[in-house]
């Protein structure tokens, strides 16, 4: 499997796309595939402050309810409201239309705690053994 090259990844299977001081966050294709059909996504409140690797919401699939973590710290600028009516968008387009929320980065240097695409590939290969 090869990941989109412009993204960074967390060990909890979230992706981040950094554009200036704004980061877009989603879950990876591997994550959506492991979760199965997603029926509900609970996202953080716009305007709230979230901390790196902290619990920021819940993703519910037909298999299980899983915690959602944020890979970066900052203020939540926007959430993907389309997921309220169509949470399966996360399954169909995990790296595109199924994005979860946008954050105004408060700690630019913390992206160094995240994985590059090839390191994340390795992680997935190990987990999938």
């Amino acid at each position: 499997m090869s990941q989109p090259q412009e993204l960074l990844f967390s060990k909890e299977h979230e992706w981040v796309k950094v554009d200036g001081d704004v980061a877009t966050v989603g879950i990876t294709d591997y994550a959506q595939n492991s979760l199965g059909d997603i029926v509900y996504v609970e996202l953080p409140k716009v305007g709230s402050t979230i901390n790196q690797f902290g619990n920021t919401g819940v993703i519910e699939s037909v298999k299980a309810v899983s915690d959602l973590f944020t890979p970066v710290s900052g203020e939540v600028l926007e959430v993907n409201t389309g997921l309220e009516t169509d949470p399966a968008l996360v399954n169909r387009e995990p790296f595109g239309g199924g994005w979860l929320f946008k954050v105004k980065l408060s700690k630019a240097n913390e992206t160094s705690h995240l994985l590059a695409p090839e390191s994340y590939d390795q992680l997935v290969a190990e987990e999938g053994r």
Partner: protein
Amino acid sequence: MSQLASEMGTPLIFEQGQNGRANRYFARAESAADYLPAEVLRDDLMLPENTELDVVRHYTRLSQRTFGIDLGFYPLGSCTMKYNPRINDAVANLPGLRDLHPFAPDEMAQGALQIMYELERSLASLFGMAAFSLNPAAGAHAELAALLVAKKYFRERGESGRNTVIVPDTAHGTNPASAAMCGFRVISLRSDERGRVGLDELEKVLGPETAVCMMTNPNTLGLFEDHIVEIAKSVHDAGGLMYYDGANANALMGNARPGDMGFDLMHLNTHKTFTIPHGGGGAGHGPLGVAAHLTDYLPIPVVRASKMPNGKPTKFVSDGLTFSLDFDLPKSIGPMRSFWSNFAHAVRALAYMYANGAQGLKRVSELAVLNANYLRVKIAPFLETPYPEICRHEFVASAQKLKKETGVRALDIAKALLDRGYMAPTMYFPLLVPECLMIEPTETESKETLDGFVESLREIVETARRDPKQILDAPTKTVVGRIDETRAARQPDLRWQSH
């Protein structure tokens, strides 16, 4: 016709019949207007009128479209779907028990109270607890009761700061929900590479905020927590209580006791271990057991026994005793359920215990463990078993490798099993094993049944490698095929409306 009804090819009972069609084999009841006030009477309810024959056919047809332990093998892990002996129902239906009024005074209900007393004493002895309450009406209900007991216990000791419940990822699935519902913060504990709670990991999360550590043993991987005594000691040293989820008690009877392992609180699912029908979402039974320091907090009422004047001791322990319901426990968390809770289940559970006896119950657990290990070893050559060691009453297999090679997932194997006349095992739990199938055969299945199941599973895996589409399209022989699970979860259609 509703959508589901049309998919199933059977109209609802409300959609059948004609006005005035009902038979009159029984005397007509007096008119409701004779004894109900006019303002509560209504004539806008479109109640169906069918002939008795049509009603009998309707429900018989529906009963043929469902699946239960009376029809076939039901290896639903953690649910202990064993045979429910008919003698239980025969005893629970004795008129003296069945027709007893919940307001009957104690002196008119001595037999019933004796049954509750003997069940309570038997459970206490079998599981090593000081006392049980028969009040909670289900397993998760008893979990909630246990956490309320713990909360009250800590509050009275001036330790209200203990607000954290530790739940290993191999615990029963309802535990975190019960803890959260009771207002505790939940810490999830990752198990070690052996699938057990690691002492080092546990020590890291223990502290002055620790209230309760909730475990089940054997755990949901079917593995015995061999360091349970040390685990209990660590939790106790930190000032916390140990809670035992009785979901997996079928592995232990007569062989090991949670009380001896150091558990302070526990519940039993008598509908699992002690052969009460799993009521299709209906009445359940979840006795709550506690160690000596917690008996004052049990839900009320509790059954008390006292020596009858001039009572003569006989071969039965409780003969010569008189029984009463005690509502006067000042420290009790209060009643969890009205009246005597689901009393008929107490009758069934005791009937089963007495039919087996202490040696018989020990044999039940030994055979449950033997059957699980037989299946585990037979399945291992064609489906991964991530923890290849002697298990207890259940084990987990994983379709992770098969999914990588063929795209066939645990879910698809489960659906294909339905076509072959089996209930599917529990899927995707525990969460720590990807693509997991949790299999619990129970002791009541024969070697022939287990062999048949293994062959079906082997055939499914072989078909998946040869022609995965066949398995991905399953089930094709059931009344309803693949359902849209997302739609079922998001837009459940649970209600019939007449207008």
